[in-house]
């Protein structure tokens, strides 16, 4: 990290012209950071749309093109899988919300373009979730966490069921009934989220899927990032940046966002999302919203410390952008993510159990 390369990826995503004077070492840092952050497809898309590919060395273009190909394959298989899931859940006669990556792709949003998709996140009303799980079992999905401790942990304390995996294709579904774990102390009104969701139409698929309204989608994306373990911090923040840029012209989006988040008791992650998107990607945020964001974050007692810790997780885990000090701060954040999601008396037994399992696994 002797050369200043550690912000190459964020800067190239924000402003593709930044790559204009790149030499071979700069490109290596950029491609490496994008590979380790799962952002190579998005980077390729961004450079292509900005007309930068002509001035990009052909060896580099090869890898950008490879990433676009992989992303197109991911998208195709996601849509095929959604058609199967749609068939399976049609009989519920209930709206099924797509969350995160699947939602971005299904709604045709910029955030879903050239992105990799792993697990498929679905949300249904709490009263329907067991029926939904049963319908998926009948179509070949099976629980992945057979251990009874994990089953109980998910069913009692989490906002989702244990992940289920398709027997032959290996595709994984996370079935949620709300957008944050109830144990985090935040209890958003899931019925309201479902009522405000928007329909999406998918090819060769029954009409069962919805996506969250723009403000709710940003709110959930922010919760996922800042209540999570921040392992893919930069990728998740780039999702948010794309959502904000795309929703910005929608009438009422900016006036609704913070009040909506406040009403759902989820203002804090949204404030962090706005601050970091603006800092890392230069996201355009109306002055009034940016001012409110600053004021409210400044009022929090541990604001500066949290800020400092989160900042470390916005650097790719790549030799050209990592350092021992950043690694240490990410470790602290990992513990923090559990503390945010669970009350302390639940967290300590859980971490102790996990630690025991890990040591056991290593010894074996």
């Amino acid at each position, binding site marked *: 990290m002797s050369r200043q390369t550690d912000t190459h990826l964020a800067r190239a995503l924000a402003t593709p012209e930044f790559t204009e004077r790149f030499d071979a070492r700069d490109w290596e840092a950029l491609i490496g950071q994008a590979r380790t952050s799962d952002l190579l497809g998005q980077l390729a898309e961004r450079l292509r749309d900005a007309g930068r590919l002509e001035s990009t060395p052909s060896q580099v273009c090869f890898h950008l093109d490879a990433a676009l190909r992989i992303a197109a394959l991911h998208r195709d298989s996601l849509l*095929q899988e959604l058609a199967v899931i749609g068939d399976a859940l049609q009989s519920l006669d209930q709206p099924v919300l797509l969350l995160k990556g699947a939602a971005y792709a299904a709604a045709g949003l910029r955030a879903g373009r050239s992105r990799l998709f792993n697990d498929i996140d679905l949300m249904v009303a709490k009263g329907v979730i067991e029926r939904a799980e049963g319908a998926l079992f009948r179509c070949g999905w099976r629980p992945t966490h057979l251990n009874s401790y994990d089953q109980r942990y998910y069913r009692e304390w989490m906002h989702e069921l244990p992940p289920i995996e398709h027997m032959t294709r290996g595709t994984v579904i996370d079935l949620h009934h709300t957008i944050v774990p109830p144990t985090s102390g935040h209890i958003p009104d899931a019925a309201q989220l479902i009522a405000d969701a928007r329909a999406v139409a998918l090819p060769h698929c029954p009409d069962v899927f919805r996506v969250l309204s723009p403000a709710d989608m940003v709110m959930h994306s922010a919760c996922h990032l800042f209540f999570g373990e921040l392992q893919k911090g930069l990728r998740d923040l780039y999702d948010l940046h794309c959502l904000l840029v795309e929703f910005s012209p929608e009438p009422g989006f900016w006036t609704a966002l913070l009040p909506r988040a406040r009403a759902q008791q989820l203002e804090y992650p949204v404030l962090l999302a706005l601050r970091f998107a603006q800092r890392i990607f230069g996201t355009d945020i109306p002055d009034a919203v940016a001012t409110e964001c600053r004021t409210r974050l400044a009022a929090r007692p541990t604001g500066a410390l949290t800020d400092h810790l989160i900042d470390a997780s916005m650097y790719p885990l790549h030799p050209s952008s990592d350092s021992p000090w950043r690694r240490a701060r990410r470790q602290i954040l990992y513990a923090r993510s559990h503390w945010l999601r669970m009350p302390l008396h639940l967290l300590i037994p859980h971490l102790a159990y996990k630690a025991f399992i890990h040591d056991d696994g290593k010894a074996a």
Partner: protein
Amino acid sequence: MTAALWSLVTPEAMSVLNWPDGAVLYNARTTTTTLLAPGAGIIVARLKAGPAEASVLAALQPADDDLPLPELLDALARYGIVRAAD
């Protein structure tokens, strides 16, 4: 059964290639690749173009095919490849 209309289960997701020793079917929905007997390959390739009546399919069957058409369609239906259209 001669009047029945047959189609592929997911024509948009299915691709087929035919050779003298058999046919290969790819189903993007299930991500499976299946080896078919030559006669079955001809039927599937015809249905890829659109639904067809059993009498049309019977005319396509090679004379030396040892499986009668109803049994062949039944087997393809059991594997989730074809279905009788409504």
